[in-house]
C-alpha cells in the first residue's frame, strides 16, 4: 500500500478533522455533511490503495461504497431531519472543554504503548495508523457523549469508517466479494437505523435517548 503519501495524508487529516467536527457540531444537518465528508476521505483512501494493483471488482466496490456512504447516507439524514424538523442534535453529557480534554486523552491513548503493536504493522504508516485508531476511539467517545439518537448512528458509522481506514492503511483489505458484503451490510444497517429513528421519534416524541425510561419500570 505505497501510494503517494500526500493523498493519504490528506485523507487521514480529513478523517480526524471530521471526527472532531462531529464532536462539536450542533445541528444534525452539519453532522450529516461531516459524515459525508469523512466517507469521501475514506473512499478516496481506498481508491488510492487501488491504484497499485488494479482489479475491476475492487473498483466496482469502491463506487458502491461511494454511492452508499457519501451520497445515500447524508441524503437519508437530511430527509429525516426535514421530515421531523429535528434541527438541533440533542445536548451532550459534557461541555466543550471537557470534550476537548477527552479527545486529547484519546490521542495520547492511541499513541501510547497499548496500541503500539498495531501502529507499527506497516512501519511507513505509523502516524497514519495512530490517527486511524484515534479516530476510532473518538467516534466511540462521540456515541458515549451524545444523547441524540441520530448522532449515535453517525457515531457508529464513523467508527466503521475509521476501522475501514485502518484496514486500508494496514494493508488488510479483503477480497472484493467480502468488501461488497460489508458495504451491503452497512447499507442495510443504515436503512434499518433510520427507520428505527423515525419509530423512536414517533413513540418517544424526541430523539433524546436519555429520556427513554419506559424500559425501567
Amino acid at each position, binding site marked *: 500500500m505505497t501510494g503517494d503519501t500526500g493523498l493519504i495524508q490528506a485523507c487521514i487529516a480529513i478523517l480526524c478533522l471530521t471526527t472532531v467536527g462531529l464532536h462539536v457540531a450542533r445541528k444534525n444537518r452539519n453532522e450529516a455533511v461531516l459524515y459525508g465528508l469523512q466517507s469521501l476521505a475514506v473512499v478516496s483512501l481506498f481508491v488510492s490503495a487501488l491504484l497499485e494493483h488494479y482489479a475491476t471488482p475492487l473498483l466496482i466496490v469502491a463506487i458502491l461504497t461511494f454511492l452508499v456512504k457519501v451520497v445515500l447516507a447524508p441524503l437519508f439524514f437530511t430527509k429525516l431531519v426535514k421530515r421531523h424538523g429535528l434541527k438541533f442534535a440533542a445536548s451532550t453529557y459534557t461541555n466543550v472543554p471537557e470534550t476537548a480534554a477527552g479527545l486529547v486523552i484519546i490521542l495520547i491513548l492511541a499513541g501510547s504503548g497499548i496500541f503500539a503493536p498495531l501502529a507499527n504493522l506497516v512501519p511507513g504508516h505509523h502516524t497514519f495508523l495512530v490517527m486511524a485508531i484515534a479516530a476510532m476511539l473518538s467516534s466511540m467517545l462521540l456515541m458515549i457523549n451524545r444523547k441524540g439518537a441520530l448522532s449515535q448512528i453517525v457515531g457508529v458509522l464513523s467508527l466503521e469508517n475509521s476501522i475501514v481506514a485502518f484496514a486500508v492503511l494496514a494493508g488488510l483489505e479483503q477480497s472484493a466479494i467480502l468488501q461488497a458484503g460489508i458495504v451491503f451490510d452497512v447499507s442495510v444497517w443504515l436503512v434499518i437505523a433510520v427507520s428505527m429513528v423515525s419509530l423512536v421519534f414517533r413513540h418517544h416524541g424526541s430523539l433524546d435517548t436519555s429520556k427513554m425510561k419506559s*424500559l425501567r419500570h
Partner: protein
Amino acid sequence: MKENGSNMFDAIASPAGLITLLSVFGLGALGALVVRAFDHVANFWTAAFAILGSLWGMLFAGSIFVTHHEVAMKVATSSFSGFSVAMHVDKLAAFFIFVISLVAFFCSIYGIGYAKEYYKRFSIGALGFFYNMFILGMLLVVTSFNGLWFLLAWEIMSLASYFLVVYDRTDRKNVKAGYVYLIMTHVGALALLLALALLYHYTHSFDFDGIKAHIAAVPHLALAAVFGLSLFGLGIKAGVIPLHIWLPSAHPAAPSHVSALMSGVMIKTGIYMMIRLFLDIMGPAPLWWGIVVLSVGAVSSLVGVLFALTEHDLKRLLAYHSIENIGIILLGLGSALIFSALHRPELVLLALAAALFHTLNHATFKSLLFLSAGSVIQATHTRNIEKYGGLMKLLPATGLFFLVGSMAISALPPFNGFFSEWLTFQALFGGIAHAGGSAQWVFVAAAASLALTGGLALACFVKAIGATFLARPRSSAARHAKESGFSMKTGMAGLAIACLAIGLAAAPVTRLLQTVSREVTGLSGVASTLHVSGSRTLVVGDHGAVVSGPAVALLLLLVVVLVWAGVRYGVYRRQKVMTGPTWDCGTDLNERMEITATGFSQSIIRVFKSFLLPTLHHAVERHEDENPYQIKSRTVSMQIRDMYQASIYRPLYRLIGMMSRSAEWIHHGNLSAYILYIFAAIIIVLAVGA
C-alpha cells in the same frame, strides 16, 4: 447359621437383593403416579410397596450382618468417565438400611390411615410418588460408593422431601418452610460438591475406595478444607446448631408420617456420611477435627433442648429435639474422632458404638413421637399445645404411645434411650480420664452439656405430656377429639414395642454395633473397653461399670407390682376410693386454671433468659361500653428472639438483597452508559492484557 438357612441369606445379601430393594420403591413411586386419579388405590399402592420394600430392606440388612457379605455393584455411564453408578453395602451401610427400613415400615402402616385426611384435597398419587422417591433417595445415599452418584442421590432425597414439605401448599408457612429448606440443602450440597471436587483433583477418582487409597496424596490444607466444607454441608442436613434454622419449620410442615421419616432418618444420612468420610475415607483424623465435632455436638444438644422448651407448637418442639439428639450423636462421633487421633482404639470402638446406638434409638422414639403428635393434630386440627388438654381420656392409645416415646427420649431406663445415652456418658467419662491437655476440658464441657440436656429434655417432655394429655381439654376442638384409626395405632404400637425391645436387647444390639464400628474404623483386632458379657449385661472398663437392660426392666416391674399388691391387698383391703372435684380453695375450677405450656416453661426460660432473650406481650381486651378499667380478657404471649435467625441469617439475606439491588442498578437503561461500559472494558483489558 444352619446350612440351608445360610444360603438363603447368601442369596438375599447379593447385588440382586439390593436391586430388588431399590426397584420395589421405584415401582411404588411410578405406580403411584400412574394410579393418581383414584385416591384410595394410590394410597394403598404407595403403602403396600413401601411396606414391602421396608420389610425387604430389613431382611437384606439382616442378611448382610448374618453372612458378613459386602455387596458391591458398579455400572459406568457414557457421559463422563469419573461418574459411575457405584453401590457398595458394608455393615455400616446395612445398619443404616435397617434403620431406614424399620422406620419406613411403621410410618407406611401409619400413613395408610393418615393419608385419608388428604383425600380430594391434594393428589395422593403425588404424595405416594414423592414418599417412595424419598425413601429410595435415602437408600441410594447410604449405599452409594461414587462421589457423584452420592451427590445425585443426595439431591434426589432433598428434592423429594422438599415436595413433601410443600405438599399442603394452601398454608403459606409450609411454602416458606419449603423455600428455606431447599435453599439450605442446595447450599449444603454445593459445599459437598466443592469438597468432592477438591478430593477428585488430588486423588483423580470419585469412587470412595479410590479416594481412600490415594488419600495420602491430598495435602493437609486441602484435607482441612474438605473437612470444613463437608462438615458444613452434612451439618446442614443433620441440622446442627448454627445451620439448623430450616429444621424446625420444615419438619412440621410435612405430613406427620413424612416428618417422622425426615426427623427420624433423613438427618441421619448426614451422620452416615460424616462417619463414612471422617473415619473411613479420610483416615486418621487430626485432633482438632474431633474437638470441632464434639463442641458442635455439645452446643447443638444444649441449645436444641433450650429452644424446644420455648416452643408451644407440638411438632416444632419435637423438631428441636431432633437437633438435641443429633447433638448427642455428634458427641459420640466427636469423641470417637478424638480417640482415633490420640490412638486409643478401644475407646474409639466404645464412642462409635454409642453414636450408632443413639442413631438407632433416636430413629425409633423420634418417629414414634412424631406419629403420635400426628394423630393428636389430626384429632384436634391444630398444632398449638395451648389448645389441647385432657386428651389422655379421649385418645388413650395415642397418649400411652406418646408417654412411651417421651420416656425413651428422656433416657428413662426401661426404654432404649437410656442405654445409648449411658454409653455416650461412658465415652465422655473415658475421654475425661484418658484424653490429654485441652481435649480433656472439651470432654468436661461436653459431659456438662449432656447432663444438663438430659434433665432439660425430661422437663420439656413433662411439659408436652402435661399440657397435651392431662387435666381438662382447654378448647372445644380438644373436647371433641376422637381416637385415630387402626392402622395409625398399629404403626405407633409397633414403634413403641421396638423402643422397649431395643431397650431390653441393648446388650446384643451393642455387640452388633461393635462389629460395625470395628469394620468402619478397621480396628478389627483390638479389644474394646465395652464388652458384652452373657447376652444381657453391658460392661465398660476394667473395673466394670455394669448395666443390663432386661435386669432393670424386670426389677422395676417386680418392685412396682409388689408394692401395688402389698398396698392394695396387704393393708386395709376394704378401702373405699371415691372420685370428687379437684379442690381449688373453694372457687369453681375451670380449665383455664390449669398450667399452660408457656406458663410451665416460664421458670426455665427465666433461668436461661440471657441466652433466650424472651419478650412478653400483654394484649388486654376491654369492654367497649362501660368504664375502660373493666378488663374483658388479658392474654400474655411470650416470644423468643431466635438468636441465630436474628444475628446470622436475616442480616445475610438483607446483604444479598442490597448487593443484588446494586447489581440490578447497572441495567438502568441509559444507552450512553452501556457504551461506556464496553469502552471501559476495551481500554482496561488492553492495558492489563497486552
